[in-house]
């Protein structure tokens, strides 16, 4: 099997430098800090015996870690992919690639694959930290698999977005900023648009139905995340509110869940971005 040379080169050079170990250390350090502060805030660090142990806290710790991992994903992926093409342009290596018969699709897919591989590395490295919550029980392995599947497809969309902007803008920093703006629009912007809509047209009198939530939030990663953690979230916690915003009703039984819709959007949007990125690279002036 032939490995995409872009993937081979990028993986080699990424792992060779000091940046990869530093990124992994910072990532894990941040997650450790989150879990430490969480247990500290819930008075679970200095307990002795089972009397003061609250299993709900352990399950919520899983949700907290999962949520912060998603936030890190939203934050890190644009940095990993924002320079995918623009850095080639900045160091004058892009022309040397484009004057070959190597397909621009392979260039784009290679860059996205590398970003997903880097995200996978971070997620895998975080497994021992996630494993802490398994000591307390209440979280099943299927919850973890679904969560990782959600992360990977979300990373595909975020990576495609970063590469797309990287083909448009000459400077890496501009493509990173544009990626953040788009992610901001997808996550917080869609909630704001929905809130404004219900404020002006409904005066917040009725609770939005599931199909209405889908109409506004299908592109929002937090909307998808809400049903990924629905089995581990309790109605009274902050994650319960996220579940409600993803289902309309906490107890509702929905077949096509919000994560399926959101990931469906991610796949289609990624395909469009990959197509546009490859076209833009191929297009000679």
């Amino acid at each position, binding site marked *: 099997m*032939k*490995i995409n*040379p872009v993937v*081979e*080169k990028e993986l*080699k*050079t990424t792992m*060779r*430098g000091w940046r990869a170990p530093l990124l992994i250390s910072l990532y894990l350090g941040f997650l450790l800090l989150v879990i430490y502060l969480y247990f500290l805030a819930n008075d679970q660090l200095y307990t002795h015996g089972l009397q003061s142990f609250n299993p709900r806290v352990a399950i919520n710790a899983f949700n907290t870690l999962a949520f912060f991992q998603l936030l890190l994903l939203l934050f890190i992926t644009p940095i990993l992919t924002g320079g995918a093409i623009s850095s080639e342009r900045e*160091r*004058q*290596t892009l*022309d*040397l*690639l*484009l*004057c*070959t*018969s*190597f*397909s621009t699709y392979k260039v784009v897919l290679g860059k996205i694959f590398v970003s997903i591989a880097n995200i996978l590395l971070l997620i895998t490295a975080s497994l021992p930290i996630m494993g802490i919550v398994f000591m307390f029980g209440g979280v099943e392995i299927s919850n973890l698999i679904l969560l990782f599947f959600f992360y990977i497809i979300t990373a595909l969309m975020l990576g495609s977005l970063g590469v797309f902007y990287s083909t448009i803008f000459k400077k890496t920093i501009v493509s990173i900023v544009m990626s953040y703006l788009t992610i901001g629009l997808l996550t917080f912007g869609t909630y704001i648009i929905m809130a404004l809509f219900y404020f002006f047209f409904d005066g917040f009198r009725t609770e939005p139905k599931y199909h209405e939530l889908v109409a506004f939030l299908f592109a929002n990663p937090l909307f998808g995340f809400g049903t990924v953690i629905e089995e581990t979230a309790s109605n009274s916690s902050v994650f319960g509110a996220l579940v409600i915003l993803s289902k309309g009703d906490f107890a509702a039984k929905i077949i096509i869940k919000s994560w399926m819709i959101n990931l469906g959007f991610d796949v289609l949007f990624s395909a469009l971005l990959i197509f546009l990125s490859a076209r833009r690279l191929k297009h*000679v*002036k």
Partner: protein
Amino acid sequence: MLIINNLVKNYGKFKAVDNLSLEIGKGHIYGFVGANGAGKTTTMKIVAGLLKPTSGSVVVAGMDILKYPESYKNKIGYMPDFFGVYDDLKVPEYMDFYAGVYGIEKSQRAKLTDELLELVNLTEKKDFYVDNLSRGMKQRLCLARSLIHNPELLILDEPASGLDPKARVEMKEVLKELKDLGKTIIISSHILPELAELCTSIGIIEKGKMVVSGTIEEIMQKTSQKRVIRVKVLSELEGAVKILKEQPSIGTVNVHNDYLEADFHGTNENMAEILKTAIKNEIPVVSFTEVDRNIESVFMHLIGGEGNEN
């Protein structure tokens, strides 16, 4: 091997390449000569598939580059005037990456890399990171990279630019080896004597137009119908121009900083007569000579040198 027909490239109203045509046969080395901004790089980028022509056609090894925009690229090797390298790769890894890009089997890559590094005299730098190579070595590495898929046509845009004299000589030696290997090459350069030594034919381009094209002998013949005289004066430059322009055997007069160059179509007697007239009119002539014809002077004359045409 390469046929360019009526090539035009416009940037808005600016014509970077203006109806340019040329033909390069298999195994020929074609020198592309012109001042900065004459349109050499634009033409080469079009042939390399990095720019789209406004009109005209380019055929490489029988393939129209607009009809076969991807597959024809296997036939060309391109080395731009300015390029970057992946500093964080070692020399063989750099070559391996481009071999992969061209779809060369992994099993063949090491041998191919060794052969090409030997060709460009970089064998002893095999364990180095690309970052640690000198400018000249990077240029030679880029040349090796452009040869990795054994292209039929090599497009080299100013391969010796920015190099010190030693590195230039080394680059010239490599190019001579490529010539001996029978490669078809189109090469642009400012160093005309070097081109004259390497190239089987040259084309002089000015303001996007091909001024003259052919073998060096043909060009010398074409332009030698016009002899050129150079007149250096202490002062009275304007007066000297006036007198020269009044002579029926004088064509175009080019004014340089402290001398004049004029196209001359007459006999030696006519030339003596012009000198006599200048002295009679009290022009302080310091020297009055016929310009020795070499490719550099032909180029300077054809593009009007650094002076103003009168």
